[in-house]
């Protein structure tokens, strides 16, 4: 059968991926460079029986999608740095109440208003640590238009399977690039739904650990009456001050994500087999890195690229292995050093780690990446 091939913009691919994944509710607030996602879903969601709403701000947007998800609709919002900052409190709410939602953050440059139309990668750590307290973090980091489509689907699937918010983190370049995308047929990529309770309303507890670390989830309106609160709560959903219960619930919401790493983790390894220098990068920086690695090989340096596609949980184990086979690791990112700290933690000093950072609103060029690779391995 002939494949459906389309020329899509990154944000357009994200919107289409969301609909493919079963997203039926979107609430958002306009912000560059993510606004096209809202514009496209405003038109397309009603056609599939879904709903779109433009809220008064990002605080309201994230609240609305959590509410809609609790009422049974797969839900998403999309934003950029300033809006992502405003959403942090309720991302924590979704973590502790275990309500699946997807948050797309198209990164732009700089803190505060920064550079609205220029790329940046300054929200790497915010995606992990933005909301207060200990909490699980799951983040997908696509580097192409096609992957923005498929990673949005993977984000919904992970959110539903794990009952947790999932962030899709990319940058302005990926969001605004137009590329050829093969659109999968319905059913070609599996779509996951949250596990429904197998017990009746009388026996239902919203955080019942009897069923494992991801408790089945009833939706409001399905005949189950239960309580949901951002206070620490027991298995029945009601607030508790019992230290043992608090400790075990807190540890469980972290553990459920850690234990998902075997299927959740995803990396791209580009020409790493015989590499002596590995360049670690995500998003659009990784695209330049792959080109740079090819150039470096033409110059006689065995270079490769390691790209976390699942950024959080971070692929510590794989990087630790990689440290045993390469001589150097270079971390390139459009910030002043965020991923590099995680890489250093992974390799524990067993191999030299250097970084290449740039925060001027321009992408890191393949030329400068190539120079770094060539310069560092040649005496």
């Amino acid at each position, binding site marked *: 059968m002939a494949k459906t091939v389309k020329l899509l913009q990154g944000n357009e691919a994200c919107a289409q991926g969301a609909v493919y994944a079963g997203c039926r509710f979107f609430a958002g607030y306009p912000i560059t460079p993510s606004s096209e996602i809202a514009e496209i879903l405003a038109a397309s969601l009603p056609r599939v029986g879904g709903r779109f709403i433009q809220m*008064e701000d990002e605080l309201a947007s994230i609240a609305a999608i959590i*509410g809609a998800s609790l009422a049974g609709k797969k839900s998403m919002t999309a934003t950029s740095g300033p809006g992502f900052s405003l959403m942090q409190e309720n991302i924590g709410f979704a973590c502790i109440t275990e309500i699946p939602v997807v948050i797309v953050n198209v990164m732009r440059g700089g803190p505060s208003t920064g550079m609205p139309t220029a790329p940046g990668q300054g929200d790497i750590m915010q995606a992990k640590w933005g909301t207060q307290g200990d909490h699980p973090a799951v983040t997908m980091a696509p580097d192409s238009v096609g992957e923005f489509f498929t990673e949005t689907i993977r984000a919904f699937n992970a959110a539903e399977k794990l009952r947790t918010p999932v962030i899709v983190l990319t940058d302005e370049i990926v969001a605004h690039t137009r590329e050829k995308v093969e659109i999968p047929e319905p059913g070609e990529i599996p779509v996951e739904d949250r596990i429904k309770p197998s017990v009746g309303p009388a026996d239902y507890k919203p955080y019942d650990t009897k069923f494992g670390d991801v408790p089945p989830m009833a939706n409001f309106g399905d005949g189950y009456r239960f309580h949901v609160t951002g206070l620490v709560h027991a298995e029945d959903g009601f607030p508790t001050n019992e230290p043992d219960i608090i400790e075990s619930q807190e540890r469980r919401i972290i553990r459920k994500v850690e234990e998902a790493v075997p299927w959740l983790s995803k990396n791209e390894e580009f020409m790493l087999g015989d590499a002596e220098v590995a360049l670690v990068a995500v998003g659009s920086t990784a695209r330049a890195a792959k080109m740079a690695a090819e150039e470096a090989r033409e110059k006689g340096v065995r270079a490769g690229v390691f790209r976390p596609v699942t950024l959080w949980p971070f692929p510590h184990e794989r990087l630790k292995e990689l440290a045993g086979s390469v001589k150097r690791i270079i971390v390139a990112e459009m910030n002043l050093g965020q991923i590099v700290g995680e890489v250093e933690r992974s390799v524990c000093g067993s191999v030299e780690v250097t970084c290449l950072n740039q925060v001027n609103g321009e992408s890191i060029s393949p030329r400068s990446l190539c120079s770094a690779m060539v310069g560092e391995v040649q005496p």
Partner: protein
Amino acid sequence: MSFDYTKYLRTEHLPHLWCPGCTHGIVMKSFLRVVDSLGLNQDETVVVSGIGCASRLPGYVDFCTLHTTHGRALPFATGIKLARPELTVVVVSGDGDALAIGGNHFIHACRRNIDLTLIIFNNSVYGMTGGQYSPTTDHGMFSSTTPYGNPDHAFDAGALAMAAGATFVARTTAYHVRQMDKLIGQAVQHSGFSVVEVLEACYTNFGRRNKQLFKSNMDMLMDLKKKAVPVEKARKLAPKEMEGKYETGLLYEVGRPGYIECCDDMIGRKQEG
């Protein structure tokens, strides 16, 4: 025969955390009588709150209940209602929750006219955090953060709701319980965004800091009674005669298609056309 509240209460989670003399329980019971008289299905009734004393109410009542973050109850409720329009969604919120940190959501929910009911538990103070002044604390009053008197002026929540486009706006007090039942009942039945402001008394964290006016919780309740003027009467009085008083009753009601109705209508027409 007295009303049996136990059908609607999660009795295993009582007693509640409200202080002796607090009037939140009066409003909660009124709401439960309304649920009963309207015959609402508990599985299809959602009660949403933010943060504060009043916002602990959902934990005590046996519906689908959601206790969210400070100020954000209305947007959470908006998401629920859009996802499942068949559900009855009621938001309970204190004055700080609804009008300070949640003030922006409040005016936009009014404007949007989505079919939700908001009950504002207005005791004009932040009780949970120990008695700081709120956006509805009267000018000159004492609180833990206005030790020299309140330099601010209070919001008129009813006027704010009307100006922002709410299609049902009512005000009552913790003293006027029969009126409260009637107005909450009308609000829940109203199609569109409805607001009921209930003026309340917090002796523990507000009254006792204003002993020049209130020696007890009962003084506060009698003060609510004294200052309330039925809207029909109030509108015949000169502004000067209404100084220091407030209108109670159904302040405003108008029929206007709600947000979901408008959306469905416009999308339907576009797709047919």
